[in-house]
């Protein structure tokens, strides 16, 4: 091997270059070694292919992790409502009467089922689960207690938060932001507004304004509830507001028969202490607070 140097120059740079040239060609592996390594390497995948394969694996694992987090249901403990139990006791308390109370109790708390058990002779326990807010449940059960105690029954009411392990994906947790706001109709607009404000604050939506206006036409009362400035903003936040009234009536059996439905609604409301006139016309149901306000039945 040669290095090209100037004869007149014997600088360190030249000498070092010569030493470098000499050193780099000493102890060179022979061609047999090269062949051996090539044969071994030929059995391995090409480096670029290997990198591509690695990238594919990394991508697959990343996608699987995201899917795991977003789609696969994970158990989460959360409040699913309130268990309300009413213990009634009175001498010679008839089962029929308890069943009637249980029905009213169930309807007023808007629950689907209730169970009644006789703890001991003359003592019955009615239990049900409601999704109403604690505030509403307190109001409703308070009214029920007054009603029942005035009729001579000993009443004990217990309300317990119900927690359940819910299996839901993270994606569902993120998107499931239905906010159920309760606006009991019998309260004033100011009370409802304060109540809604508290519910929104509890849901972490303190920044959303709430406004409740009341309009009265004759005996007809209309509540106008506005939450948030802009529906688009609510959509953006993924918030679906749903309003629940405190009274739920079961008129499924009377569907299709206006007269029967009207009578059933009146009966159920009267059981709650609300005496009103009801007019059913197909899908339109009009409820009037007093009989005087009812429109003439004769056209």
């Amino acid at each position, binding site marked *: *091997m*040669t*290095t*090209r*140097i*100037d*004869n007149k*120059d014997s*600088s*360190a*740079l*030249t*000498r*070092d*270059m*010569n*030493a*470098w*040239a*000499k*050193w*780099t*060609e000493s*102890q*060179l*592996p*022979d*061609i047999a070694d*090269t*062949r051996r*390594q*090539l*044969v071994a*390497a*030929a059995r391995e995948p*090409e*480096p670029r292919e290997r990198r591509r394969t690695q990238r594919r694996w990394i991508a697959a694992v990343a996608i699987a992790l995201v899917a795991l987090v977003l789609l696969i249901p994970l158990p989460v403990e959360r409040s699913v409502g309130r268990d309300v139990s009413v213990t009634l006791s009175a001498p010679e308390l008839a089962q029929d009467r308890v069943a009637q109370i249980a029905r009213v109790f169930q309807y007023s708390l808007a629950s689907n089922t209730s169970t009644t058990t006789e703890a001991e002779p003359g003592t019955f326990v009615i239990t049900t689960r409601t999704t109403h807010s604690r505030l509403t449940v307190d109001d409703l059960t308070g009214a029920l207690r007054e009603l029942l105690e005035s009729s001579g029954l000993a009443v004990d009411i217990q309300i317990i938060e119900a927690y359940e392990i819910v299996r839901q994906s993270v994606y569902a947790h993120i998107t499931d932001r239905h906010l159920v706001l309760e606006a009991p109709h019998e309260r004033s607009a100011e009370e409802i507004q304060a109540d809604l404000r508290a519910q929104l604050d509890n849901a972490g939506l303190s920044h959303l304004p709430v406004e409740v206006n009341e309009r009265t036409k004759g005996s007809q009362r209309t509540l106008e509830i506005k939450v948030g400035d802009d529906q688009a903003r609510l959509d953006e936040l993924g918030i679906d507001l749903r309003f629940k009234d405190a009274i739920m009536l079961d008129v499924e059996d009377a569907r299709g028969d206006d007269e029967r439905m009207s009578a059933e609604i009146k009966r159920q409301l009267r059981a709650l202490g609300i005496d009103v006139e009801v007019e059913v016309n197909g899908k339109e149901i009009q409820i009037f607070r007093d009989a005087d306000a009812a429109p003439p039945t004769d056209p």
Partner: protein
Amino acid sequence: MTDSAQSTPEQLIRLLEPIHDEARAMARRLCRSRADGDDLFQESALRAMRKLHTLRDEKSFRWWFYRVLFSVHRNRSRRDTWRRLLRFGRQDEHEVIGADGSEWEEERQRVGRMAEALARLPAVQREAIVLCDIHEMSVEEIAALQGASASAVKSRLSRGRRRLRAYYERIGMAPLGSRLDPMDVAASTAPEQTREVL
């Protein structure tokens, strides 16, 4: 030349044999250590084997293989740059040359200095200097190998040498203003000024 699926180590070895030692040494000279140079050569040989079907004329194998070698060298240089910047992997693990005896001390220092000086050059300047000053290639040959014009090669040589001199001056091996010009570009076209040292 042949189908890529049929390229075998034997086919490459047959073509590589005449230039094997020269190519191996060249690979080492482009790297900071012999181990790195051997890795560079092996990676280049493997790539050459897989790309052998693109070789049209066996007579031009030598130049074709060097082009593959330079391509791999530049890829590795880029990778090493990022590694150095991001502080990945080994950075300053160099072979200790002649560490086994004091008689090699001077040799060790010379080789270490040159390895360090060449490692500081950009890949294309390092290639140009190694090809011109050690492998005695002409500017035109280097230009063909590097896929650049002759003037670009001259520029690379000139800048590379300036950097080498600057490095040597910085470490106190050559006083400023002294003539450290053993590898002038003109010398590459003047064979009468060269002598065989090995």
